[in-house]
């Protein structure tokens, strides 16, 4: 028996299959997920690692706590007593590895985002992130699609532009509609507008409509990759001109059954533009009454040195496992959410 098949036959024998689940509502030490779920989660993690190893990726590890973090408008980092931030994603350090010469790298790690708790959110969660030098937007989407097919057993993903999804669900042009037009569409669709909402901000309207009306319709019967986001939501992605003449971000997101699973970028390599975007984020944070974050000089230095042309992607592993195992919330597949 070869080593691989020996490994597989060990995996086929369930260690936890007969264990009676202890009700976490009655015993506060007990995990919220069943041991069977956790065992199957472990098997999926091994399949995921094999997927990347088969394609020549190197598994890396980077710090969880660091003095710098990527400034994001809508992600609140957790500060650590004594200085530094728990990382909200491993992107900053993985890009430093790429600038130092790494070619194809992946990582399975924990990420931390303050205040994010819900059926599909936990302040601490497992993220899978990978980069491959030489990949453009479409190669990046191909790789993500292949991974989803392997782990979820789903058919080829649909590919839809951000603009197409808005036309399909709401009959409006996401790239050219004015805030007033977006407001009208929201009203017609019966979307509850949150109080304190900035009605003059196009991106606020787009995010609201995406979250409440577009997302639930995405990836209904098979995964769906949304790409070509508005340039104003480019984050760390390259911006190009779309066939229709709009400036769009080479950013993509995978959805399955209305659940956002992964976010990828054909990575911006221009350090000057990246600094400008980070400054814009900090200005917007300040305007929103939140603390600006320190400029991630180590990442900008890596980009100045030379970040090779590449595409990267990150995937919420807890959500993927939830969908793969037929759960409804990530607490079904996480041992101790809420701890």
């Amino acid at each position, binding site marked *: 028996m070869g080593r691989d098949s020996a490994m597989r036959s060990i995996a086929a024998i369930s260690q936890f299959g007969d264990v009676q689940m202890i009700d976490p509502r009655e015993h506060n030490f007990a995990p919220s997920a069943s041991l069977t779920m956790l065992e199957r989660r472990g098997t999926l993690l091994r399949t995921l690692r094999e997927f990347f190893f088969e394609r020549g990726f190197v598994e890396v590890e980077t710090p969880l706590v660091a003095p710098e973090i990527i400034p994001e408008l809508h992600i609140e980092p957790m500060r650590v007593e004594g200085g530094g931030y728990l990382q909200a994603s491993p992107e900053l350090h993985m890009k430093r590895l790429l600038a130092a010469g790494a070619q194809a790298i992946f990582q399975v790690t924990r990420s931390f985002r303050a205040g*994010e708790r819900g059926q599909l959110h936990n302040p601490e969660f497992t993220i899978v992130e990978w980069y491959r030098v030489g990949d453009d937007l479409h190669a990046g989407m191909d790789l993500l699609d292949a991974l989803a097919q392997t782990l979820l057993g789903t058919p080829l993903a649909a590919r839809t532009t951000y603009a197409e999804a808005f036309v399909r669900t709401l009959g409006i042009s996401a790239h050219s509609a004015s805030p007033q037009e977006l407001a009208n569409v929201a009203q017609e669709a019966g979307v509850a507008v949150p109080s304190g909402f900035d009605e003059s901000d196009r991106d606020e309207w787009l995010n609201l409509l995406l979250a409440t009306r577009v997302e639930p319709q995405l990836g209904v019967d098979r995964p769906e990759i949304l790409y070509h986001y508005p340039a104003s939501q480019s984050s760390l992605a390259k911006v190009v001109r779309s066939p229709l003449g709009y400036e769009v971000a080479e950013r993509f997101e995978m959805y399955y059954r209305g659940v956002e699973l992964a976010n990828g970028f054909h990575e911006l390599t221009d350090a000057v533009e990246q600094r400008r975007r980070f400054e814009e984020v900090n200005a917007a944070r300040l305007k929103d009454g939140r603390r600006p974050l320190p400029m991630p000089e180590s990442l900008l230095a890596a980009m100045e040195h030379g970040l090779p042309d590449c595409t990267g992607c990150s995937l919420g592993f807890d959500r993927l496992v939830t969908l793969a195992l037929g759960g409804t919330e990530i607490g079904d597949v996480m041992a101790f959410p809420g701890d």
Partner: protein
Amino acid sequence: MTTYNTSDFRKGLKVQIDGIPYLMVEMNFRKPGKGNALYECKLKNLVRGTMLDRTYRAGQTLEEADVSEFAAQYLYRQQDMFVFMNNVTYEQYELTKEQVGDAWQFLKDGMECNLMVYNNNPLTVTPPNHVILKVEYAEPTARGNTATNVRKPVKLETGAEIGAPAFVNTGDYLRIDTRTGEYIERANGPE
């Protein structure tokens, strides 16, 4: 009074909006990866019992509502007012017919209920889940017709009418589920 931030929002929170107390019965956190967080709340108006859907952005706040619940004895009814007494402080509370709602059907002098107050003003009253009440009048049933699946209306000592099996007679004591208003079984006597 506590101020709740969106990150404190959860099921079971009691909050006030425009001076009205609400119970958060559902809270759904929704957030696209790079987009703004939305806190979709279903709020139950504790005065009227109606539902309100409200969505909040991260960083917004709601004031805590001073709502408390305690055991209170039902004393008596005076026209349209129902009088209760806090078992510990002996403070008395008067509730209107609207505030008592369907609970009037099960209220018997001396019964221990659960009273909810907002800023010490009564909101609602909940009787025990199971109560035993005497049948004031039941239509006599033809001899032999003792099938249990046949229901007939019977009048209780509180004045309420409920459906009971054919074998129930005037003067019987019945155990009733106050949440559904349904007959459970015949009891041996008053509690």
